[in-house]
C-alpha cells in the first residue's frame, strides 16, 4: 500500500499537466514552428562555405565572411538598396499618415455634401489594388517622364508618388473610426479658446490619435518595404533598387551559390522591421482590433 502523500503529489502534478503543462507543450511546438526558419537563416548567414547545402549544418561553422562580401561587392550594392528601401518606406509612411489623417479629420469632423459618397468610393476604389494596375502605372510614368523626369521610371521619387496614390483608402477608414472616438467637445472647447481648425488638427487631434497614426505608419512602412512588383517594374538601375528587388534578383541568379550572402542580407534587412514590431507591439494589437470593430 502506498502512503497517502504519494497519490496526492501525483494527482497535483497530473492536474498541473492537465491544466497548464500541456499548454506549454503546445506553446513550445508553436515556437519551434515559428522560429525554426529564422534560426536557419541566421545560421546560413554565418556558415563558412555559404552555399545552400552548407547551411544545413546548423551553426556547424562560424564566420562573418558572408556579411563582409555582402557589403563589399560592387555588383550588388546592398548598402544602396538598404538606404533606398528605408528612405522610400519612411517617406511613404509619413506621407500616408499625413494625407490619410487629414482626410480622416475632414470626414470625421465636418459635414459636407458628398461626404458619405466619398467615404464609400474610397472604400470601393481601394478594392482595386495598385498591384493589378501596374501596366497602367508603367505607362503613366512614361508619359509623366517627358514633363517631370523625376516622376518617371527609374526614380525613387516617382515610386513614392505611386505609393502615396494609395494613401487614402483603407488607412483613412481605419483612422476615421479612431478619430470618431475622440469626443467632439474637445474641438469645441479649443475653438472657444480661439483655436483655428488647423491648430485643432495639428496641435490636438494628431496628438490624441498617436496610436492609430503609429499603426498606419507601420503598416504603410511594411507594405512598401515588402513591395516587389511595382518596385521591380519601375526601378531598373541596380543602385536605385530596393531590397526586395535587388536581393531577389541577386539570389535567383545563382540560388545555391549565393545563399550565404543572401542570408546575411536577409538578417540585416529584417532587423529594423522586427525591432519596430517589438517596439510598437502594444499599439498594433489595439489598433488592429479597434479599427476592425469600429469599421
Amino acid at each position: 500500500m502506498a502512503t497517502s502523500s504519494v497519490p496526492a503529489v501525483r494527482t497535483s502534478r497530473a492536474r498541473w499537466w492537465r491544466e497548464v503543462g500541456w499548454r506549454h507543450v503546445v506553446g513550445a511546438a508553436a515556437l519551434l514552428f515559428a522560429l525554426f526558419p529564422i534560426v536557419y537563416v541566421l545560421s546560413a548567414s554565418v556558415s563558412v562555405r555559404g552555399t545552400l547545402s552548407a547551411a544545413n549544418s546548423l551553426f556547424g561553422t562560424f564566420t562573418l565572411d558572408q556579411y563582409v562580401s555582402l557589403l563589399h561587392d560592387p555588383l550588388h550594392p546592398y548598402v544602396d538598396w538598404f538606404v533606398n528601401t528605408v528612405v522610400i518606406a519612411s517617406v511613404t509612411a509619413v506621407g500616408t499618415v499625413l494625407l490619410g489623417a487629414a482626410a480622416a479629420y475632414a470626414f470625421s469632423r465636418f459635414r459636407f455634401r458628398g461626404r458619405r459618397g466619398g467615404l464609400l468610393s474610397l472604400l470601393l476604389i481601394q478594392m482595386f489594388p495598385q498591384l493589378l494596375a501596374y501596366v497602367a502605372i508603367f505607362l503613366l510614368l512614361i508619359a509623366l517622364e517627358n514633363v517631370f523626369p523625376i516622376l518617371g521610371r527609374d526614380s525613387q521619387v516617382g515610386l513614392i508618388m505611386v505609393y502615396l496614390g494609395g494613401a487614402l483608402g483603407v488607412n483613412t477608414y481605419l483612422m476615421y473610426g479612431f478619430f470618431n472616438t475622440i469626443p467632439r467637445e474637445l474641438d469645441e472647447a479649443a475653438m472657444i479658446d480661439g483655436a483655428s481648425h488647423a491648430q485643432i488638427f495639428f496641435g490636438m487631434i494628431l496628438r490624441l490619435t498617436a496610436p492609430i497614426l503609429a499603426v498606419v505608419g507601420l503598416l504603410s512602412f511594411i507594405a512598401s518595404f515588402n513591395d516587389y512588383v511595382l518596385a521591380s517594374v519601375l526601378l531598373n538601375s541596380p543602385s536605385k533598387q530596393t531590397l526586395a528587388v535587388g536581393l531577389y534578383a541577386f539570389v535567383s541568379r545563382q540560388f545555391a551559390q549565393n545563399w550565404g550572402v543572401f542570408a546575411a542580407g536577409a538578417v540585416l534587412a529584417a532587423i529594423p522591421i522586427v525591432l519596430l514590431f517589438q517596439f510598437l507591439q502594444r499599439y498594433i494589437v489595439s489598433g488592429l482590433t479597434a479599427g476592425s470593430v469600429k469599421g
Partner: protein
Amino acid sequence: MTTSTAVPPAPPAPPTTPTETSRRPRPESHARGALTMGYVAKLLLVALVDALGVYGIFAGSAHESWGIVGFLAFALLLVNLVYFVPSRRLIPAKYLVPGLLFLLVYQVFVVMYTGYTAFTNWGDGHNSTQSDAVTAILSQNERRVDGSPSYGLSVVEKGTTLGFAVVAPGKTPQVGTAASPLTDVPGATVANGVVTALPGYSVLDFSSIVQRQQEITNLRVPVSANPNDGSIRTTDGSVGYLYRSTYSYDAATGILTGPEGTYRADEKVGNFVDAKGQKIEPGWKVAVGFKNFTDVLTDSSLRGPFVSVLIWTFAFAILSVLLSFGLGLFLAITLNHPRVRGQRLYRSLLILPYAMPAFLSAVVWAGMFNQTFGFINTVLLRGASVPWLNDPWLAKGAVLLVNLWLGFPYMFLVCTGALQSIPADAIEAAKIDGASGPRIFRSITLPLLLVSTAPLLISSFAFNFNNFNIIYLLTQGGPRDLTAGVNVGSTDILISFVYKLAFQGVNRQYGLACAISILIFLIVASISAATFRRTRALEELN
C-alpha cells in the same frame, strides 16, 4: 462642423487663420494681420506647388502632353481656390485636396486606364498606331536598291544620338538620325565627297566607327517622312546606299502592296489582311469590345488554365485564412490562461514570422524546400528527394504551409486581443447554468470572437486573393503546366497569372491582362461588399 458663435475674447490683433477670416466681413485681413507661422508655411507650400505646376504646364506644352497640361491647370486652380478663398464651405476641402490629387492621378486614372485597355487588343504586335505599323512593316522589308547611287557618308553624333551626314553627287549635304529624316545642312564642310565638319555635330573618326560598328550598321536614317521613300544605311561607315522596302503603302487608299499580294487595313483586328485572311505583323492597337473578356471563357487555350487558376485562387485564399485563423485561435485559447506563465514572452517570439519581411521569408522557405540541397529533404527527411516545389500537388501544399507560417501570428495576436475583451461574466453565467467547456466555446466564445474578427477575416481573404509575393517569390507560379497554351503553373493565382501575361514571355498581352485584372477587382469587390453589409460596418458611416 459645429462652431461656436461666441466671439473670441477680443484679441487686439485680428486673427489670421482662414476659419477666423471667413467669419469676418473683410476677408483680406491676412494683409493687415500679423503673419503667423502656419500662414507662412501654407503660403510657402502653395507657392511651391504653383511653381511646380506652372513649370509642368510649360514643359507639358513643349512636349504636347495636353492631358498633363489640362490636369495641372485644373489642379492649380483647385489648390489656389481651396486655400485662398475664404469660405467656411471650403474648409473640409483643405484637408481632402492633397490626398485626393494623389488618388486621382495614381489610382482613379490608373484604374480607368486599365478599364480602357481591357477593351483593346494592346500587346506585342499591337503596340502603337497604324502609321507606326506601316513604318515598321516597310522598314523591316527593306532591300538595297539595285544600281542606286552610293552616297559619301560620315557618321556624326549629337549628344549621344548617332546620325548620318550624306553627300549625293552634285547636291547639298544632308544630315539625319533614326528619328528625324534627312534635311539639307548648308554649313557643312565637304572634302573628298564626304562631310568632314558640321556645326552642332561631331564627326566620328575611324577608331570610334570601329568601336561602335554594331550600332552603326544597325542604324537606318529615313530619306523623308514618307516611309515609301526608303532609308540610307551603311556597312562600313563611309559609303551609304539607298534601301527601299519591298512593300509600298498608299495612304490615300489605305492599301499596302507587297511582293506576295495586296493587303487592306482591317480595323476590327488591327492588322493588314489580304483577301485570303493572311495577316502581316506587326499590327496596331484597336478597340476590340468585350473580346478579351469572352476569350477568357471561350478561347480553348485560355479557358482551361483560367478556370483552374480561378479555382486554386479561391482554394488558396480560403484555406490560408481558415488554416491560419484555426491555428492562431487554438494557440490563443491554449496560451490565454491565467496560470500560464511567460505569455508575453510567447507573444513577442510568436510575432516574429509576422514581423519578418514577407519577401525574405518566401525566399528562405524556397531554399529550405529545395529538392537537392534544402534543409527539409537533407536533414529532416535524411536525404530524401521529395520534389516539394516541382510536383503540382506538393507545391500547392508547400505554398499553403508557408502562408500558414506567415499568417498565424497575426491571427494569434488578433484572437488573443478579442478573447481578452470577451466579458468574463458571460462565461461565468454559462458555467453556473451548467454548460460544459466545449459548449461554452461553441455558444459564447466563438460567436463573440467572430463578431470582432469577421472584418479582419474578410480583409485577410481579400489580401490573400491577391497575395502575389508569396506565390511569385516561392514558386514563381510553377511547376509550369507544359500542356497549357499559355505560360501558367499549378500554383499560379489570378494575379501572378496576369503578371505573366503582361510582362513575361514572348507574347505579352496587356489588353487581356487588364481584362483579367478587372475580373479580379469585380470578384474581390463584390465579396467584400456583400460581407461588409453583413458586418454592419457601413452603418456607422453617419
